[in-house]
């Protein structure tokens, strides 16, 4: 929490997607922090202690999203993580999201309303 608002960390290598997410989340009254890579994301987690993380599955490297998640779990941080995945990413069938410890998956293109509703129920 910061200034009474929940802090959400968004990690995606596409700067425009990050910006869109920021606009939507700020409209939902959240504090938004962004990172453009998995390594940057890990650093930011330590810095800002987010209440929730949204991370893209495919960044510069394949599976960088899942790598980020496992590394984070390993370091003992317990923050709800949501993954952004594109339809047609055939990895869908191959990753056990529950085993990975994800709180959920959003399909791209995001539905902003749906996103905000879900976050509201998750972050009371």
């Amino acid at each position, binding site marked *: 929490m910061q200034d009474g608002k929940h802090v959400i960390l968004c990690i995606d290598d*596409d700067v425009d997607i990050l910006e*869109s997410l920021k606009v939507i989340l700020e409209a939902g009254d959240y504090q938004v922090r962004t990172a453009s890579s998995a390594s940057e994301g890990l650093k930011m987690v330590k810095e800002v202690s987010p209440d929730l993380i949204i991370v893209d599955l495919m960044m510069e490297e394949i599976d960088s999203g899942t790598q980020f998640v496992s590394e984070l779990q390993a370091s003992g941080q317990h923050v709800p993580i949501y993954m952004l995945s594109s339809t047609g990413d055939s990895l869908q069938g191959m990753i056990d999201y529950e085993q990975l410890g994800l709180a959920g998956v959003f399909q791209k293109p995001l539905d902003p309303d749906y996103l905000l509703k879900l976050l509201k129920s998750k972050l009371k």
Partner: protein
Amino acid sequence: MTREPGNHTPIPMEQELQARLAWFISLRWFAGAGIIVATFLVSLIILPELPVKPLYAVGLFVLLYNLAFCLYLSRTGGFEFHTRQFILTQIGLDWASLMIVMFFSGGIRSPTSILLVFHLFIGAILLSRRACFLLTGCAVIILGVLAVLEETKIIFPPSFQETQQLTLMAPFTPHAIWFGISSFLAVTAYLATSITVRLREREKALFASEQALQNVNHDLEALYHLGRVVNSKLDIEQVLGMIAENATILLGMKACFIRLLDKSKANLSIAAAYGFSEAYQNKGPVKVGQSEVDLEALQGRVVQVLEVGDDYRFIYRQEARKEGLRSMLCVPVESMSGVLGIIRVYSAEPHLFTDHEQKLLSNMANLGAVAIENARSYSELQNLNKEKVWFARMTHHQLRSPLAAIQGVIDALPYAGTLNDKQVELITRARRRIRDVFDLIKDFLDLAAAQRLREPKTEKTVLLTTVLQKAIETARDNAHSKKINLVIDIQPQLQLTIDPEDLERIFSNLLGNAVKYTPTGGHVTFHASRSDEGVVTTVSDSGIGIAPEDMDNIFTGFFRTKEAKASGEIGTGLGLSIVKTLVDRLGGYLSVQSQPGHGTTFTVIFPETVTVRHTNA
């Protein structure tokens, strides 16, 4: 079957001879018996003074030596049938018997002299012309002796003066009779041998042409078989290996190799070899300029060399001699695109290659050329296809990210501040077009995937209900929101051996279209069952239908009917062309029936025996 170098005595003629000899032996029984019976009758009816005892003795003698022949043959199993000695023994004994009969039945005036003619014919058939004339000469001499005997009155028994009254030759002198009979014999011998000589020649020619025909037939069969192999296998090494082997064996050679030009066209490397020792084979690529023989062949000419070890055109003369290679025939391997290489056969003995052999080798070289072109075309095809699929995938992937970004930004607009109605409308327009582009690039990828070469390894036997689950669910969701009644009727346990992705693509398109182009409250039915023709599936709807004039175009890429566009539903126009490409590739059957305003039914039949196209053998 290999060709024998040189010629044997032709086998059918030997068999002919054996048959004739067997026949003569059986005739001899009659001859022996005939002598006895004739003697008996003549002595009884005509001439009581006939010296019957000697004549009976000769008859018996004939029967006895015939028996000896039979026993001899049964012991040797008939293999000695045609030896010269056996024939001469038979003839000798026959003639001796005849002479004795003649002597005791009247000497030169004996009517049995006519039997000489019969024996001459036998001689002409069994023996060569020279031998037959020799026999005739002997006969003439013996007859002469008989004539002299009568003339000088040494002839006995004297009671035979009476026979002179009985024969036609009574008024003539012994000399005259002798001369008459001898001339007759000579002419007969000449005529008989002329006929048989000509017959034999004909037989030989016929046999030779039969042999030649058999050889040609055999060659054709081998070529046919090889042709089929070439058509059914794409493993070029295997095919060329078989050609080298077959060329060697068919031509009765020792060894063969096929060398092909490399990309630079400056070297010839061995593509296949047969019959060489390890050491000789591993000689590595040869520079084209090095070998005159190769140069000539590469120009399209056939080259033969009689003695490889001595010919200056050969670089490795020593090795060739050691390897036991004597003569060589070299022909080019030529295809439509030019000379691809050369094929050479080597013989173990010096050999002059006939026209026929050259043609045969050229034919095999042609088969090799075809096989090579096939293999090259196929691999080029595969490469092109891989490139195409890669390109489609890259396009899809690369276009998606920026599109997703655009979509994200547009979706975020309403959250960056309050929008007026006009702004909202504009955003909606933009959103729709972005969705269009997403659909389009997905369809592009699907189309590229549909057009790829078929890979049997991606096919498996699957249950329709399992593979189509997602497509059906999506259709159900869409149908539900449009209040369309969707009926799914799939025969239980219905299976297909197919790439599951292909199956999914076909029906997600067909079902998607059916729901899309059916107005609210309509119905869509998906039916699938097995019949004699295979698995028959139909997707029918009560939708907008297809106008008859559009029927031919609906499977064309990017085509959308007026009705489809007017329906307000979005579509890329690629869906049906994807379906058609997929069904065609699977060897299936696709048809459509429709009435504008009433509905459409698509039928897809997956054949029982999946036809094979574009496969690796």
